C-alpha cells in the first residue's frame, strides 16, 4: 500500500506542475511526469512477489511468472505517450513562432 501512495505522490507532482506553471515547456514536462507515474502504476499492479519475468525457457517449467498483461498494455502506452509529447512540442514551437513567447498568459488573441 505504501508503494501505491508513493506512485500517487509522483502523479501529484506532475499534476501540480500542469496546474500552476506558466511556461509551456514546464507544462509538457508535467504531462511527461504524469505519464511516467501511470505506466509505473500498471507495472506495479502486475508484480508478483518472487516472480520471474514472463519469458519461457525451452528446458525449464516456470511456475511463478509476473503478470504479462499489464506489461503488454504499458508497451502501447509508452509509444502513445511519446507521440503526444511530440505533438505538444510541435504546437509549442508554432506558438513561439506566432507570439514570440512561451508564457501562456500572453497568448490571448484568438484571431489567426
Amino acid at each position: 500500500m505504501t508503494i501505491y501512495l508513493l506512485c500517487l505522490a509522483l502523479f501529484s507532482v506532475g499534476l501540480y506542475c500542469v496546474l500552476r506553471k506558466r511556461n509551456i515547456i514546464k507544462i509538457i514536462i508535467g504531462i511527461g511526469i504524469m505519464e511516467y507515474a501511470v505506466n509505473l502504476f500498471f507495472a506495479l499492479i502486475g508484480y508478483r512477489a518472487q516472480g520471474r519475468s514472463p519469458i519461457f525457457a525451452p528446458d525449464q517449467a516456470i511456475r511463478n511468472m509476473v503478470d504479462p498483461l499489464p506489461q503488454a498494455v504499458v508497451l502501447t502506452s509508452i509509444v502513445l505517450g511519446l507521440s503526444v509529447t511530440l505533438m505538444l512540442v510541435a504546437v509549442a514551437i508554432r506558438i513561439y513562432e506566432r507570439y514570440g513567447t512561451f508564457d501562456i498568459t500572453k497568448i490571448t488573441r484568438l484571431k489567426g
Partner: protein
Amino acid sequence: MGTNSEKGMGVIVKTVTKLTLGFILLYGIYITLSGHISPGGGFAGGVIIALSFVHVMLAFGKDAALKRLRPPGLRLVISGAALVFLAMAIIVPQGRVFDSEVIVPLCEAAIVGPGLFVIFVALVLLSKADKDSE
C-alpha cells in the same frame, strides 16, 4: 545553442559516428527480429533504428544527413508498412492465429523507425526556420 547545427559537430564526434553507426543499426534490427525469444519487439527496434538516423543528423549537420537519407524514400517505407498493417487487419478477423514472428515486428519497425526520424527532421527544420527568420 553553442554549435552551429548546419555543419554538425567536431571531428572526434564525426569519426566515432562513422564507426558506431553500423552497430547501432544492426542492434536495432536484431532487437526487432528476436522479439519473440528475448525482450524487445518491433517498437523498441524501430525506435533504435530512428535513433541511429538521428545520431547521423546530429553529428553531421542537417544538409549532409538529408542528402544520404532522402525523405521520399522514408515516406515510401512508412506507407508500405501501413498498407501491410491494413492487409493484416483484413485477414486477422477470420480467426486464424497466423505466423506473426516476422511480419508483425517488421511492420511495426518500418512504421516507427522512419516515422520518428521524419518527425525529428520536421521539428528541427521548423525551429531552424524560425531562428533564421528572426
